[in-house]
């Protein structure tokens, strides 16, 4: 059951970034999701998510620095 797809992973950095961005927003188009599910590996999504979380925290800190 581990293999949801038999194809080798072919997700690009841009694809990972897009998937993580929409995940943070909480919305995703079904067709984009299907292409994510077939081309991204869990490791890619997790690493992308961690980088995304770090960027999110840094951007919040920058905003806070600007307004204080």
């Amino acid at each position, binding site marked *: *059951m*581990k293999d*949801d797809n038999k194809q080798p992973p072919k997700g690009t950095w841009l694809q990972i970034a897009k998937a993580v961005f*929409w*995940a*943070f*927003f*909480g*919305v*995703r*188009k*079904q067709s984009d*999701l*299907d292409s994510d*599910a077939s081309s991204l590996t869990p490791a890619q999504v997790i690493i992308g*998510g961690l980088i995304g*979380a770090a960027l*999110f*925290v840094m951007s*919040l*800190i920058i*905003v*806070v*620095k600007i*307004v*204080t």
Partner: protein
Amino acid sequence: MAAVHDHDIAHAHDHHPTGLMRWLTSTNHKDIGTMYLWFSFIMFLTGGVMALTIRAELFQPGLQIVNPEFFNQLTTMHGLVMIFGAIMPAFVGFANWQVPMMIGAPDMAFARMNNWSFWLLPPAALLLLGSFFAPGGAPAGGWTIYPPLSVQMGMGMDMAIFAIHILGASSIMGSINIITTILNMRAPGMTLMKMPMFVWTWLITAYLLVLVMPVLAGAVTMLLTDRNFGTNFFNAAGGGDPVMFQHIFWFFGHPEVYIMILPAFGIVSEIIPTFSRKPLFGYSSMVYATASIAILSCIVWAHHMFTAGMPVTGQLFFMYATMLIAVPTGVKVFNWTATMWRGSMSFETPMLFAIGFIFLFTLGGFSGVVCAIVPIDIQVQDTYYVIAHFHYVLVSGALFAIFGGAYYWLPKWTGHMYDETLGKWHFWLSMFFFNLAFFVQHFLGLAGMPRRIPDYALQFADFNMISTIGAFGFGLSQLLFLYVVLKCIRGGAKSPAKSWEGATSLEWTLPSPPPYHSFETPPVIR
């Protein structure tokens, strides 16, 4: 979701011990799920009696029923019992019953560990409740067990710390079991993105639990060594820092809030499509929103500590991050509403609780956004406004979803339909008395009534009286639920395999009640 399976009921391998040994030695996910649910209901009544004692004392100004020391023990233990004893085990009970059936598995992945996860709970509950009889009584510094109070208390505190250790170990084992089951035991064709929403929310919740329960264990272990072995982690006189405890505690405590609400989202996401007779609107965005809420929940903890002292930079960071959680939560509320839009809706008891959930949880979410705004939080922190906020999220949120889920799956679990009329009475009584008890607490909080006090100034008298009447009405209404469940277990109209016309997930392909081992032959998902 279409599924085929050739389950032969007569061939069900239900050779298992009977009587007490059936329950003590059980490795069956349904039996263990049942035990979790009964345990949580007993703890719910226990914590409820504490709540009613609190409300009885607050019926009038002055001290009438309990002394202030015991009152503090009651507020503390009410929180600990309801969170660790009632809400969390209830959701694990749902996971045990439903996850294997919903993904087409015969049982949980680690069946013996599952038994141990459950049987750790009763000793932990005995330790926790036994602390009332220890010298000095039960913990009395609030459920957040902040030092220095928690360092100074009697041995009841040590008992509570051990209870939290045991409950944490149980939760971690339960989570590992759920993650392994979901990732490895899905039926052929059941890809991750075909899983029912309840399974998704529990997968994410289980990861959150594995992440934060060790943090709580670390915090209470440091408390334990501060109390008994001369360390000074949190003792300012010895160079420690009590505020550090608050940071560590809330790094656990805020994700914990989502641990208690994400499975509720999952249950509601099963009920709403069934009774709207439409697939869940925006399934994929629901999955993404759940993941998003889980990630954000880990970077907002210090909004519980705005008044504990922190730089304005920190306040603004945590305020912005907290307010952003409203975005994925809003996505969920809109998706549920869109699922109902132009659906062929019917209003059986589970649907009533689900709609009540959406309405009141959204209210509780909004008052949460109010509390997230630093200048307002400085006004309302430690007042009844906060009490009102988190009871809207945890009672009309988590608990209403638990009731909805119980009514939804009772026909599957017992093989009998429950009494629909009494179920509706239970909903409407709960709805009325819940709002009577808690809505007025917003006013009390805004007027400045502090939480965790046994006595109050005269101007708060009327709203407190209303709130107490509501609380007793709500508490007594839950006895009706107990009656409905017992009546349903003992008999009633036979439920077909598919108890609800609009239900689609895999558990409805099994007979009601399901055989002892759910899917001996994995179903094939088309």
